[in-house]
């Protein structure tokens, strides 16, 4: 079996508030970049598949040269190989999906593609479905657990709203996972050393024989959201007095 995890390099979540509109617009961020946290769960899911059902798990990302660091993190966690699809021209979610689909096909006989549920920078969560459509494969989003994998089918538990569904579909398949798939494992010392030495292959759109579609989503007017009008009113006294005053204030605000 072959599993391929699609990851993205995104800002360290602790530093997201520091990003300025200018940086966001130019894409040249001064903050620390890491593996998108949802994708760390996807890597974990991919590694579990390898352990439970045999085969190999690779990682792939679309980005510029710096994104190799994210791939090295995936290798350090235990992925067997990694590929950078180098692309620096402006593309949108459909463009990313096009490149990832081409990378999946280029990889050969992939059985399961895993992605995180969304990224902490783009936030749309639309790439997994787009990737599935580009490949012509089924897509299961919100995957919390892989129940079974056979030569030609997969059974998973999905969380959709407040409902949990056990669903079976054919492979090859695209999965987008949530945190319940498993806590990302820590890289081992040996894997970190190995990952540092790996020469990560770099492919371009041309190598993959595709031309990503021109963006159909146009983004402008980057700005900070209005600051919260945050002057806290504290209620004092005994818990009983403070609680009563608080409930009164909330009634006054008409939120109860």
């Amino acid at each position, binding site marked *: 079996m072959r599993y391929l995890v699609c990851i993205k390099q995104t800002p360290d979540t602790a530093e997201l508030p520091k990003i300025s*509109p200018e940086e*966001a617009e130019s894409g040249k961020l001064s903050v620390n970049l890491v593996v998108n946290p949802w994708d760390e769960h996807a890597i974990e899911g991919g590694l579990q598949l390898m352990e439970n059902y045999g085969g190999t798990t690779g990682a792939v990302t679309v980005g510029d040269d710096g994104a190799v660091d994210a791939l090295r993190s995936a290798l350090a966690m235990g992925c067997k190989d990694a590929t950078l699809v180098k692309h620096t021209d402006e593309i949108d979610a459909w463009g990313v999906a096009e490149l990832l689909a081409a990378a999946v096909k280029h990889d050969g006989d992939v059985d399961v593609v895993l992605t995180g549920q969304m990224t902490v920078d783009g*936030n749309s969560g639309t790439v997994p479905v787009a990737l599935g459509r580009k490949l012509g494969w089924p897509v299961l989003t919100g995957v919390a657990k892989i129940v079974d994998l056979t030569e030609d089918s997969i059974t998973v538990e999905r969380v959709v709203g407040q409902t949990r569904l056990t669903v079976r579909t054919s492979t090859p398949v695209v999965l987008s996972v949530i945190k319940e798939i498993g806590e990302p494992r820590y890289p081992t010392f040996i894997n970190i050393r190995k990952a540092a030495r790996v020469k990560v292959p770099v492919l371009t759109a041309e190598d993959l024989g595709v031309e990503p579609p021109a963006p159909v989503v146009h983004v402008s007017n980057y*700005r900070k959201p209005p600051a919260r009008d945050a002057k806290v009113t504290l209620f004092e006294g005994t818990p009983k007095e403070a609680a009563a005053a608080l*409930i009164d204030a909330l009634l006054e605000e008409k939120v109860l």
Partner: protein
Amino acid sequence: MKFLVYIETDMGDVVASSWEALGAALSLSDDVEAIVIGDKISVVVEEAVERGAKKVYVVEDETRALFDLERSLADVQNALEMSGADAFLASHTSNGRDLAAALGVSSGAGVIADALELTLEDGALKGVRGVYSGNILVDVTVDGSPQIATLRPRAFAPAEKASEASADVVLMDPADVDSPYEVLEIQRAEKGEISLTEASIIVSGGRGVSKDPELGFDLIRELAGVLGAAVGASRAAVDAGFISYDHQVGQTGKVVRPDLYIACGISGAVQHLAGMGSSKIIVAINKDPEAPIFSVANYGIVGDLFDVVPAMTEAAREKLGK
């Protein structure tokens, strides 16, 4: 501009945030149609009419009881062809997001995903959305036809019911497509459990319950019960096993937008704020007056949640007459 609005159903029940998508469309145009896909959905269809859709396309079939991406996409494409709508709106639920993405990518049209605001400018949709987990806002326009947007739940006012409404109801044949998905088992939330993303009030607990997590969350649930609130949690509380992941609010949990968010024993890390920072009123109960949550809170009590939360429950019971 002519709109087609997706009214999501689940085993015959409407997904309530769909009415917000209908409301958004009606606030921008008089020419608004809806599509309802599901099984045993006559009540929902009626409600779509009452809430102002001019025409309602209906696909009612056993195979539609649960959302199925392949079938819903084909049904929506059929309805779009009949309607000739210029724009397609859905609520940004898991299913709404997936449907919009599938529709967009198959027609080469862009999606304004998870919009917080929506306007019409020069005959085209313009959305406002958050990127970098809400730390930056942007304007978004899209190319392609139809123009597609998904709307953040609770960011738009639902379409109101009118008594004298009438509309054409168009019964459509379910699209003849095979689905690759086979649902083997369905586990539903317990009756009465309120969805975090739809809740107008949320009471959340964090690591601050540590000294007696079971009692802590019992106290939080009791307050939530009196207020008609959903129960949320920080990641620390989830990771410690105090409560299940479906309650997690934040960066790697749910993004919520209630009128009132009560954070009990939660410090207010940026990853937690990423999930609840746009709540209308934030209340913090924390024993540390320096906790960062107080810098985003409107109201607060510095104290031990094991004392304060039950006192709030009692006060709320008294004042709300429950």
